[in-house]
Structures are given as C-alpha cells and as structure tokens.
C-alpha cells in the first residue's frame, strides 16, 4: 500500500520465508534480521528513514523497536501495533502512536452485529 503511494520501503523480518508473502513486484529493500537491534535497523536505513512502523505479533517487540526508532534514530513518525489494550494505553501515554487491533476488531464486530439487528 505504502509502496503504491510512492514511498521507498525497507521491510525487516527474522524469518526469511516471511518475505514470500510480499507481492512479486515489491521493489523495496528486504532486510533479514531483528528489528529491535540497532545495527540491523541501521542496515535497513533507519538513519535516513522518515517513518517507522512496528507491526510484528509481539507487543513488547513492537514497543522496543518503536522506542529505538524514536529515541535512537530520531524518526519523527513512528507507528506501533499493540494488541493488549492495557499495554496500548500505557504506551500511548508514553508518547507512542499506537494502533490496537483488538479494540478495532471488537468495534467492527459490534457494528456487524448491530447491522444484523437493524
């Protein structure tokens, strides 16, 4: 989506098979490695990044990666997926921009049910 918008993308994962899910015409940089490691982030170009997104399945990993992006690499736009609503509240309070899929899904499901009733 972001690439289609015209942005230059670098994507990181510790699992090399994860890159198989990317569309075949993906032109960005694929970096095999740990997104919570400063050297690996540097390899992915974190020093010149305008935005950073942490979207692994692990809340704690996302929170650490985002805070490294924000405080070590001084990236201004940092977005983080945090599944646990309480953890999301804490990190939001600490100044991270967060998305909580749990709450979003609950909201969508509620809307779905309410539509059925109508």
């Amino acid at each position: 989506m972001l690439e289609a918008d015209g942005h230059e993308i670098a994507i990181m994962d510790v699992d090399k098979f994860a890159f198989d899910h990317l569309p075949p015409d993906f032109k960005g940089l694929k970096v095999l490695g740990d997104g919570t490691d400063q050297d690996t982030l540097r390899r992915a170009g974190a020093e010149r990044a305008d935005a950073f997104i942490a979207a692994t399945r692990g809340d704690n990993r996302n929170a650490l990666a985002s805070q490294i992006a924000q405080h070590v690499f001084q990236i201004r736009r940092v977005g983080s997926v945090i599944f646990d609503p309480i953890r999301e509240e804490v990190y939001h309070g600490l100044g991270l921009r967060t998305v909580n899929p749990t709450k979003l899904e609950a909201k969508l499901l509620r809307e779905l049910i309410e539509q059925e009733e109508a």
Partner: protein
Amino acid sequence: MFIIVAGAGKVGYHLARALIADHEVLVIELDPARVDFVATELGTDVVMQGDACDAATMERAGMERADLVVATTGDDDDNLTFCQISKARFDVPRTVARINNPQNESLFRQLGIDSTVSATNLILGHIEQELPWRGLIPLMTLTGLNLEIVEVRVPNEARIVGRQVKQLLLPQGALLCLVISEGTPRLPTPDTTIHPDDILVAVTNIEAEESLRRALTESDAAPG
C-alpha cells in the same frame, strides 16, 4: 522491601534466593516447569505463574505495593515493557532491568529505567581495564544523572603531557577529579602537571565522553 522479579531463569532465581532472607520477594514466571522448580526450592509463596507484562497478572502479584521491580528475562523487549508498565501504571518507585543487547543500555536509561545491568558491558569493562590502553574506561554510571566516572591512562605521546591542569581544554560537562601519578592519588590543582602514564579519573556527562577522550589522549599529530 517488597521486590517483584520478572523471570525465573538463572538470573531471576539466584537473585530471588539471595534477596529472600531480608526482603519479601515474588517472582513472576511464564513457564510452569520453572515455576514448579522455584516453588520447590524457595517456597510456593515466592513464585507466581503468569505473563509479567500482563496488567491483570501484575495486579494479582501486588504490583501496587512493590518498592522495587527487577526484570531479569533474556529478552530486552520483555524487560523494558515490564519496567515501563510497572512505572507508568503502578507507580513503582524503582525499576531495575537486565540488559541483554548491550546497545540497549543507554536507551533504557533514557526511557526512565532507574538501573540497568548488562553482563556484556561489565565483561567488556573488565577486559578493557586489563588491556594496557584502550581510551576511556567507564568505571561507574551515576544513576539518573547522565553522568559517568571514567578512567584514562595518559599515553606517552598525548598532547597534554607536560601541561598543567589550568592549560587543559576539557569539554563542557567534564571535570577532572583525580590524578594518580606513580600510584599516588592527588586532587588536581591548577598547577598540577600531567605526566605520561598518569591515571586520570574524571566525571563527564555521556555526550562529552568522546571529546574528553580526545582531549586527554590524542597527540598533536593525530588527525581530527
């Protein structure tokens, strides 16, 4: 004190065992087998099964009345989250984190973790102290102040050799505290002369460390 420890691995277990005589200690551990082990060795009231970063578990552990929490797991992300939630949600006065990836140590400090312990950095410090000369050796970090006490041995060719303390150009935020000449420590005065192989002890803020190293160790010929 009431101390909550996250993680009952080797570090967490031995820490709890050492603290238990003088403090109330509770270890939170995810792995049931480790929980059983600690319960058998230290008592069932010392350990609790659960995710230490989960607020409900933290509440059950009595986080509100904890005086100190220590994160000892082998994962920095878990250690950071545990400490940050303890502080932000439960107002725990003091947080201590084990650092696994040494690059995370200064970030954790910056994020408000009160004390950090990195085995890798400690071992590196010891190795550096035993080598003849490797620039500044960090001796100690002053908690919460962004200050460090460092040691340096003056190289023969350093441009400060033969100069007096009042002639030294030290960076802002750095203070020379002690000059050890041939094993005798002296408080530096403006007239103290620096000799080769003197050991200097200085307090510096972390940002000034690199310029302090250059000021104290570089020769005139050195580039930059």
